[in-house]
């Protein structure tokens, strides 16, 4: 392996797996202030456009017998609607637009991020942290508004023996506050990992001897990443539903 690397130095075998996550201004310069149009902004805009195409343009026919485009929109709608109904319950349907927003946004962004030379917003800790903390604060506030101090019963496990309840309460509180961290790191980490691995394989493709293997690896990873892109959007949404269920029905 070391010999290979030595031999490859001349041909430029250098790994920059993380460069694809750099935020850069679109129109030159290096300053990134809060309003600068960057590649992050471009791909967020494209994500919104993709959501618009699928959910609005696709369903413009309003046909009773749906066209293909309309079927996709209806499928997404039914998928999230049923998820909320199954996991959280019928009383959570009022939060359906927000959960649908999360799902469609993450899904479209994950898939757009898989386009070569694109920018994956969901691989950015800043982005996923905002998404996860929005869910965390929303769920906490909903819990306190709906149940007042009864919401704290979530941490006081009445089904356990009295002696171990304080210990359980500490564990529950810690796990409650770790939720947004794991919620955001899971999404960003998955997308980062997949993209970085593809990039590493791509670097190996520069070696003639390894290139067939590398291209095969890229293809396989790309297929896996398509799956991960969907599953991570699904997992993020379903965990949001689970947390919301805790807020709406805090009894253990």
């Amino acid at each position, binding site marked *: 392996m070391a010999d290979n690397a030595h031999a490859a130095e001349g041909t430029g075998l250098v790994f920059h797996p993380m460069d694809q*996550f750099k*935020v850069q201004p679109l129109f030159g310069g290096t300053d990134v202030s*809060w309003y600068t149009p960057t590649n992050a902004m471009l791909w967020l805009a494209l994500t919104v456009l993709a*959501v618009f195409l699928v959910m609005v343009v696709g369903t413009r026919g309003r046909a009773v017998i749906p066209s293909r485009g309309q079927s996709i929109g*209806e499928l997404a709608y039914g998928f999230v609607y049923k998820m909320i109904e199954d996991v959280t319950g019928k009383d959570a349907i009022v939060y359906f*637009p927000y959960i649908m927003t999360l799902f469609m*946004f993450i899904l479209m962004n994950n898939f757009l991020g898989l386009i070569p030379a694109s920018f994956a917003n969901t691989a950015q800790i*800043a982005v996923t942290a905002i998404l996860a903390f929005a869910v965390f604060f929303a769920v906490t506030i909903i819990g306190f508004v709906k149940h007042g101090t009864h919401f704290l019963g979530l941490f006081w496990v009445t089904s356990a023996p009295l002696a171990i309840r304080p210990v359980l309460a500490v564990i529950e509180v810690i796990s409650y506050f770790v939720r947004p961290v794991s919620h955001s790191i899971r999404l960003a980490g998955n997308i980062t990992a997949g993209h970085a691995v593809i990039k590493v394989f791509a670097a190996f493709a520069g070696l003639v001897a390894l290139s067939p293997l590398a291209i095969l690896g890229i293809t396989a990873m790309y297929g896996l990443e398509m799956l991960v892109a969907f599953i991570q959007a699904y997992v993020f949404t379903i965990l949001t539903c689970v947390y919301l269920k805790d807020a709406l029905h805090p009894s253990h």
Partner: protein
Amino acid sequence: MATESHGAEAVAAGHAAAESAGMPQLAVETFGNQIFWLLVALVATYLILSRVALPRIAAVLAERQGTITNDIAAAEELKLKAKEAEAAYEQALADARTQANEIVEATRADIKADLDAALEKADAEIAAKAAESEKAIAEIRANAAESAAEVAKDTAKELIAALGGEVDGRSVTAAVNARMKG
């Protein structure tokens, strides 16, 4: 080992141009930008979905549900009608069958009556003819017996006369009558 450190230096050199070496995700100076645009994108997505897309899809799904329900009701009605028609048909068939049976019975009775009448008449005729014939036969028989007695008496008288006997008419008649009876 030297190679790896060289690689790491190359990585570091590559990042030297950028403000922060290492993970671009941790470049805090880009957070403001990302978060701002993210919030804009999220609000835009939320508005698109909640104002346009979701009500529209919900309406389409409700309309489809309604159409399906209506169609099922219509199909149910048609099925009911078909059942009614079938029942009417069965009824008509049964009626026709009873009627046909009645006609058959009536015809059979008529024919039987005619036949009986004809048979009776024929029987009567046959009986009359038979009686007539019997009478004729009896007459013929009576005539024949009388003639035979006559012939026998005459023959007997002639025979007695021929044999030289004295003809006693009364005794001959008695004797012939007795023979004829015997």
